[in-house]
């Protein structure tokens, strides 16, 4: 089967399955966050899993999407257009700064992306007249519920956001899988393994890296816009360092090489804190231990480790 179609069917089935078993809005709310994170992390998969580039500043792009969606409506821009402009703005910024930043490698790339993310975060925290400062701002605008009312469905707010974000996550995954199996996708994966060999084959490595950076920035920004709309309130912390780390951790934990890794990583790191409320005092210790142990025991992440296990069983 075509891998994109397979991805679509599996993820769409998961979205529907969630809706079938969820007993309350609370579950829809957590599900919504899982899908938003899956979308953002799929962008990290393109950048880290396909091309092998580490970004510790992607929360900055996430925040651009979120804040564009929050700010522009007060200047008369409709929410949906504001979200699109936010995604475009994040992509444009990534395309502009990508070239000089992506010449760096390893820890130097990490600090440069980190610095970029921090700069965005600082602007959002300092310019209170525009962003409300560290206390954040209310997001006026579209409610997904209205979308469903158009077709005569009267859903609860949490439920309608679940469907909207689930749809975006599935589409995002399909696009990423398409890309992975396409001419440009092969070029990106070639750079992952050897950029010298890739350039000897006529691949413009700088351009390809910058493209992947831009794509992943747009993913993050769209996820940010969805979070802003679904939450109705945002603070600069969506653009903070720890959020960048969280996105990369989700990707690596699940397995950065595939979109299923993105889903599994997003699911675990979103749901785990909800489960761990029982052990409130130990929450951070458990979270830290899970991160360390997964990386030691399953280098390539959970999904590849499980696939290997299944293969070995079959043999």
């Amino acid at each position: 089967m075509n891998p994109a179609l397979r991805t679509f069917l599996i993820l769409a089935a998961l979205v529907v399955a969630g809706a079938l078993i969820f007993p309350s809005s609370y579950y829809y709310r957590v599900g919504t966050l899982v899908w938003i994170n899956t979308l953002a992390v799929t962008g990290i998969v393109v950048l880290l899993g396909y091309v092998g580039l580490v970004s510790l500043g992607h929360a900055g792009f996430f925040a651009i999407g979120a804040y564009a969606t929050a700010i522009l409506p007060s200047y008369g821009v409709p929410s949906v257009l504001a979200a699109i402009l936010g995604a475009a703005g994040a992509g444009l910024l990534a395309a502009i700064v990508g070239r000089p930043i992506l010449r760096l490698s390893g820890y130097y790339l990490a600090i440069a992306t980190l610095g970029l993310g921090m700069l965005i975060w600082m602007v959002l925290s300092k310019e209170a007249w525009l962003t409300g400062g560290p206390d954040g701002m209310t997001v006026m605008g579209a409610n997904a519920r209205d979308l469903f009312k158009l077709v005569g469905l009267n859903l609860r707010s949490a439920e309608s956001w679940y469907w909207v974000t689930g749809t975006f996550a599935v589409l995002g995954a399909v696009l990423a899988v398409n890309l992975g199996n396409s001419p440009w996708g092969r070029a990106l994966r070639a750079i992952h393994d050897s950029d010298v060999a890739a350039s000897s084959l006529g691949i413009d490595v700088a351009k390809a890296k910058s493209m992947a950076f831009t794509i992943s920035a747009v993913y993050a920004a769209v996820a940010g816009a969805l979070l802003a709309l679904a939450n109705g309130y945002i603070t600069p912390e969506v653009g903070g360092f720890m959020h960048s780390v969280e996105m990369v951790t989700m990707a690596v934990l699940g397995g950065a090489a595939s979109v299923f890794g993105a889903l599994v990583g997003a699911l675990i790191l979103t749901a785990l804190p909800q489960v761990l409320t029982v052990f409130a005092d130990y929450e951070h210790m458990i979270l830290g231990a899970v991160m360390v142990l997964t990386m030691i025991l399953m280098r390539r992440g959970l999904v590849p480790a499980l696939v290997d296990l299944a293969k070995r069983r079959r043999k």
Partner: protein
Amino acid sequence: MTKTKLIAAGVSALALSVASPALAQIKIGASLAVTGPAAFLGDPEAKTLEMLVEEINAQGGINGEEVELVLYDDGADPNKARTFATRLIEEDEVVAVIGGTSTGATMAMVPLFEDYEIPFISLAGAVVIIEPTKEYVFKTPHTDRMACRKIFEDITARGLSKVGLISGTGGFGKSMREQCMSVAEESGVEIVADETYGPNDADMTPQLTNIAGTDGIEAIVNPGFGQGPAVVTRNYDQLGIEVPFYQSHGVASDSFIELAGDAAEGVRLPATPLLIPDQLAEDDPQREPVQSYIAAYEEQYGESPSTFGGYAYDAFHLLVDAIERAGSSDPQAIRDALEETEGHAGVTGVYTFGPDDHLGLDLSSFRMLEIQDGGWVPVEQ
């Protein structure tokens, strides 16, 4: 908790469970920043709520019903706070919620409580929480605008007017800075210098040097909480600056004096009566709650309570009072009773809510204190 209390609690719980097999319960929710950047505030809030719930159950609960506290740690993350608010409403089916240590977390939860019609008492400072008034949202802390007014009142009373601000860049400092800027003119002061510092900065002498070098500077105000204000205070002392120095209610606790040491001498700040339990007049309505809160907290945790714990104390007692008056734990009834609260003496101030006032405090509940000989002394006005 003492042994006798524990036994009493055990016995009464046993007695209740024997008496009524289908034990009625009142579930109260809380989402606080027990960890994270605002843990300094959220930790005493959580401790206070846990202590009060034990206490009230030991006394037989509210209207004979046991109180259960469902507490989540949102780490001051609005995203988490909103999830927990959903969980409190839908899964835990609480009748009222206390919390939102930070303004961000509070504001992320507000639409849900309005939507589900559940009364909510925030412990965060910013004005936006209750302005405009939201039907189900109340708050116990003074607003930062009130703190600015109180400070400026004291500055002008001393015949001064030219003020330099040095604010933390965290939510508290940033928000209070904005409020101080906006009320400066009407309060008769002029902001002549405006500097900031990061929450974990190690040295603020450059900023203070600039402020001290500003022409005609007459007073310095430092909105912020956590360690920053203590560092600023030490730097102020180090540079030998002479103009009067004001802190905010954000550092109104004994630990500020410990951290800032001798440098804190002469510093003034607006605070709640919690800091001066023994200096309150016999007929002060706040004397009783303040002293009993401090006694209970010190006994339970071996440390003195903070202003922030006091906000949680007031929120809980306002809620208990409303439930008792409503005679019901129906969320709508609780809300209505809350709004009718009149003259409720808490540790922060005396609350009187109304349809247009969900804070219920006025400037008089703030006491201007000065640090003298390592202790708090009310400023005569």
